[in-house]
C-alpha cells in the first residue's frame, strides 16, 4: 500500500532522464502533483481490503508465549486461537475447545475441534494443545506470562480430540486465564526451534503473518482456510507510531484507519472531526491509590481514612479524564468477577478528612507520594493538591521506574506513603487484583490482615461461584475498613477510528481484527 506513491515517482524520474532537456522544473512540479494525487487515491482504494492500525509500538515478540505487552498481544492474538475466548459481551465461549467438563475439583477435560488446521496446513490436535500448555508452564522456557498460568500442574492428551488439564489446587480462574493461552503448533515449534518460531510464527487464527519489519510494521493476511467466520479485511497492517499526535495525523489523513491509546484531552478535540470517530469502552483496568499501612504516618488507620475522604474521584474523572472513566467504590471494576456494588466507598468529604486528621494528631503530616514517569503526573499533582487541602504536607518523590519499583515493592518502611497505579490482570477476576496487591507477603502488599488473607485464599481455591462472590464481598469490606489502598476510577480504553470502521472494543482491551468490518 505504501509502495504505490513511490512507483509513481520512479516512473516520472525515469522519463526525466530520457528527455534530458531543461524541463527539470516542470517535471518536479509534475511529480509532486502526481504524488499528491496518487497518495490519497491509493489509500482510499486499499482501505477496503487492507486495514491499517497505528499502535504506539511494534511487537516485542510474536511468539504468543513470550511477551504480552499491549502491542505484542494486540498483534499475535490475531494469528492464534485459544481453547476458549470471550465474545463481544465478555462472556467466555468455546474457541478451539467445543466443550469442557470438570471431572473433579482439580481436573478438567476439554473436547477439541477436529476441523482446525494451522496455517502451514497441518492439523491441530490435542497434542498441540497439551504441548502449548506445557510449554508455557515450563520454568526453563521462562515465559513472562508464567505467573498467569502457574496454577496449572499438567496437560495430558487423552485422545486426538481430548485434553485433560490438572491444576495444583481447585482453581476457579482457569478458564479466564485460558482465554489468553495461545495454541501453538507442536511439530513446527519443535522443528524450527523457539527463536525461529518467534521470527516466523504459525498459528491457526484468522490471520497469518506475512512480514514483520521490526520497529516499522507487521503485516498479516487473512487465513483462507480459517475454520471460523472469514474475516472481512484481506490484510491488516499494524504500524508502530509512538507519538500520539502523529497517530492522530495518520488517522486524519487516512494513513491509518484505527489508532490506539488516544488520551482523553485529544479524544475531546477529535470529537466531531469529519470522517472519524472516537470509540471508547469501560475496561477491567482500574486506577487506584496505594496507601502504606505498615510504615510512616499512614500506619495510623485514621490517617488512611482521612486520605480516602480527601480524594474527589468524580473531580478526577471530570477534569483529568474528561469523562472517559468512572469513579469506583472498590479496587475493581464491573467486568471483574468478584466486583460488588454492596461495599460503599468513601465519599469526598474534606471536613471529615480534616477532623480525622485532627483526631489522629497528624495535622501537617508529611506524606511521600512515590511516582515515576510511567504514571500520569497530572493525576499525581491533582491528588497531591487534594491531600494538602485537608492538611497533609504531601511531597512528590519522582523516581526512575527501577527505583520506584524497588521502593514500592521493598521494605514497608521505605515504600513511601502513597502512590498511584492502573491495574489489570487481563483475567477479569478479583483474584488477579486484590491477591497480588494486598495478600500478606506479596511484593506489592504493605498491609497484612489474616482475615483478608483467609478470604482471598479461600476464593482462590474453590469452584463454587456463590462462595467466591461471598468471599470477595467480605474481602472488599475488610479493605474498605483497613484502607491499604482505594480504587479511584475505572479506566476507559479510547480508540480513534475512521467513521467507516465497524467495531465494538471490549473490556479486556483485545483487538480482534476478524470482528471488525467496513461500511
Amino acid at each position, binding site marked *: 500500500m505504501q509502495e504505490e506513491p513511490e512507483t509513481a515517482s520512479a516512473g516520472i524520474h525515469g522519463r526525466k532522464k530520457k528527455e534530458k532537456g531543461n524541463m527539470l522544473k516542470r517535471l518536479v512540479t509534475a511529480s509532486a502533483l502526481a504524488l*499528491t494525487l496518487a497518495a490519497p487515491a491509493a489509500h482510499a482504494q486499499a482501505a477496503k481490503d487492507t486495514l491499517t492500525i497505528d499502535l504506539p509500538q*511494534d511487537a516485542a515478540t510474536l511468539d504468543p508465549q513470550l511477551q504480552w505487552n499491549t502491542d505484542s498481544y494486540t498483534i499475535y492474538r490475531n494469528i492464534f486461537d485459544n481453547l476458549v475466548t470471550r465474545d463481544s459481551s465478555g462472556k467466555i465461549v468455546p474457541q478451539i475447545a467445543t466443550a469442557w467438563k470438570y471431572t473433579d475439583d482439580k481436573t478438567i477435560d476439554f473436547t477439541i475441534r477436529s476441523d482446525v488446521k494451522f496455517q502451514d496446513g497441518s492439523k491441530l490436535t490435542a497434542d498441540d494443545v497439551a504441548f502449548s500448555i506445557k510449554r508455557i508452564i515450563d520454568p526453563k522456557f521462562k515465559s513472562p506470562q508464567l505467573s498467569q498460568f502457574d496454577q496449572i500442574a499438567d496437560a495430558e492428551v487423552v485422545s486426538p480430540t481430548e485434553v485433560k488439564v490438572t491444576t495444583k489446587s481447585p482453581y476457579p480462574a482457569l478458564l479466564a486465564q485460558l482465554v489468553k493461552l495461545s495454541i501453538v503448533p507442536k511439530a513446527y515449534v519443535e522443528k524450527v526451534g523457539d527463536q525461529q518460531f518467534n521470527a516466523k510464527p504459525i498459528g491457526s487464527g484468522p490471520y497469518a503473518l506475512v512480514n514483520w519489519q521490526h*520497529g516499522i510494521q507487521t503485516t498479516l493476511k487473512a487465513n483462507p482456510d480459517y475454520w471460523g467466520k472469514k474475516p472481512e479485511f484481506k490484510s491488516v497492517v499494524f504500524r508502530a507510531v509512538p*507519538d500520539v499526535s502523529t497517530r492522530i495525523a495518520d488517522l486524519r*489523513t487516512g494513513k491509518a484507519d484505527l489508532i490506539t491509546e488516544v488520551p482523553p484531552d485529544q479524544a475531546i478535540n477529535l470529537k466531531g472531526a469529519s470522517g472519524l470517530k472516537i470509540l471508547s469502552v469501560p475496561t477491567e483496568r482500574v486506577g487506584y491509590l496505594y496507601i502504606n499501612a505498615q510504615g510512616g504516618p499512614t500506619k495510623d488507620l485514621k490517617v488512611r481514612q482521612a486520605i480516602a475522604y480527601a480524594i474527589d474521584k468524580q473531580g478526577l474523572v471530570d477534569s483529568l479524564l474528561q469523562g472517559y472513566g468512572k469513579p469506583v467504590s472498590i479496587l475493581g471494576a464491573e467486568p471483574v468477577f468478584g466486583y460488588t456494588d454492596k461495599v460503599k466507598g468513601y465519599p469526598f468529604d474534606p471536613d471529615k478528612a480534616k477532623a480525622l486528621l485532627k483526631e489522629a494528631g497528624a495535622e501537617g503530616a508529611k506524606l511521600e507520594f512515590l511516582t515515576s514517569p510511567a504514571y500520569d503526573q497530572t493525576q499525581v499533582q491533582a491528588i497531591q493538591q487534594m491531600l494538602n487541602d485537608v492538611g497533609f504536607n504531601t511531597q512528590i518523590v519522582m523516581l526512575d521506574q*527501577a527505583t520506584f519499583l524497588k521502593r514500592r515493592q521493598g521494605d514497608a518502611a521505605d515504600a513511601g506513603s502513597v502512590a498511584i497505579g492502573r491495574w489489570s490482570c487481563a483475567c477479569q477476576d478479583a483474584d488477579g487484583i486484590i491477591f497480588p496487591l494486598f495478600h500478606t507477603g506479596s511484593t506489592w502488599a504493605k498491609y497484612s490482615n489474616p482475615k483478608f488473607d483467609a478470604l482471598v485464599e479461600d476464593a482462590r481455591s474453590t469452584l463454587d461461584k456463590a462462595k467466591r462472590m461471598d468471599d470477595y464481598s467480605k474481602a472488599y469490606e475488610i479493605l474498605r475498613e483497613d484502607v491499604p489502598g482505594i480504587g479511584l476510577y475505572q479506566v476507559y480504553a479510547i480508540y480513534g477510528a475512521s467513521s467507516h470502521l465497524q467495531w465494538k472494543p471490549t473490556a479486556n482491551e483485545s483487538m480482534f481484527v476478524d470482528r471488525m468490518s467496513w461500511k
Partner: protein
Amino acid sequence: MLRYATNRLIQAVIAIFGVLTIVFVVMHLSGDPTLLLVPQGASPEMIAELRHQLGFDQPIFVQYLEYLKGLAHFDFGMSVVQRAPAIDIVMSRLPYTIELAAGALVVAIGVGIPVGILMATRRGGFLERLLAAFVLTGQSIPTFLSGILLIFVFAVKLRWLPTSGIGGWQALVMPSIALGAISMSTFARMVRISMLDELGKDYVRAGLARGLSLGSVVFRHVLRNASIPVITIAALEIGNLLAGAVIIETVFAWPGIGQLAIQSIQSRDFLVVQVIVLLISFTYIATSVLADVVYVVVDPRIRLAR
C-alpha cells in the same frame, strides 16, 4: 603530528573507559533491574530466581568485571524482552538513523552555509536581519514542536508529504528538516562569524583593489579560509544529530535507534538501552577525535602552535 594524534587517541580511550563505567553505574545502581523485568504479579521467589539467573545477586564489582569481559568479547548481552542479541537489534535499526542524520546534515549544511555567507556579505542590510530571524527561529523551536507543526501543515493540511514512517525520499523530508534545523542555525552562525573575520583581512582588500568582484573573492579565497572551523562543527554536529534523533524519530515514527531507545526504556529492555547509549557516546568521541585531527591536517599553524 604523530605524537599529537597519539595523545588524542589516548585521551579518547580514557573517555571511552569513563563512558563504559558511567553507563554501568547508571544502569546497575538505580534500583533493581530485576523488578523491571518480572510481570506485575510475580512472587518473591520468582523475582529471586530471575535475579540469580541474570547475575544481579553477585557483588557489584564482580558484575562490573563480567560486564567489561563481555564488552571485550563484543558481547553486549541478550535483550530480555526480544530474546535476541542486543547488538543485533540495535544494528538492524542503525541504518535508518544514519539515513536520517545524513538527511539532516544535508539540510544543515545546504541551508546553513549559504545563509551564513549571505549574512556576512550583506552585513547590516535588510536581508541579514531577515535571515537572522530565520536562524533564530531554527535554533529556538524545540524539535518535538517543529516536527508536529510540519506534520500538521505539510501532511494533514496540504497533504504533500506522508505523515509518518519510512518509504521513499518524501518520508525523509520533514524529519530531516526538523532534525537539521538546529544544526543549520549553528552552521549559519559559524560561517557568518568566520567569514566576517576573513572579510576584514588585508588579502580581501587587496583582491577588491585589484578589481575582483566580491563574489569571486568570497568563493575563491574567503570561503576556503573560513571553512576550517566549519569542518570542526560538522564533525561535532554528527554526534548531536544522533542524539537529537531520539525525539524526531519518535515524532515521525522513524524506525531508528532513537525510537528504539525510547521503546527499550519503556519496556525496561535495559541491555538494548545500554548498547544505544554506548554507541552514541562512541560516535561523539570518535567524531571529536576525527575533527581534531582533520583540523590540524587542514591548518598546520595549529600543530606548530602547540
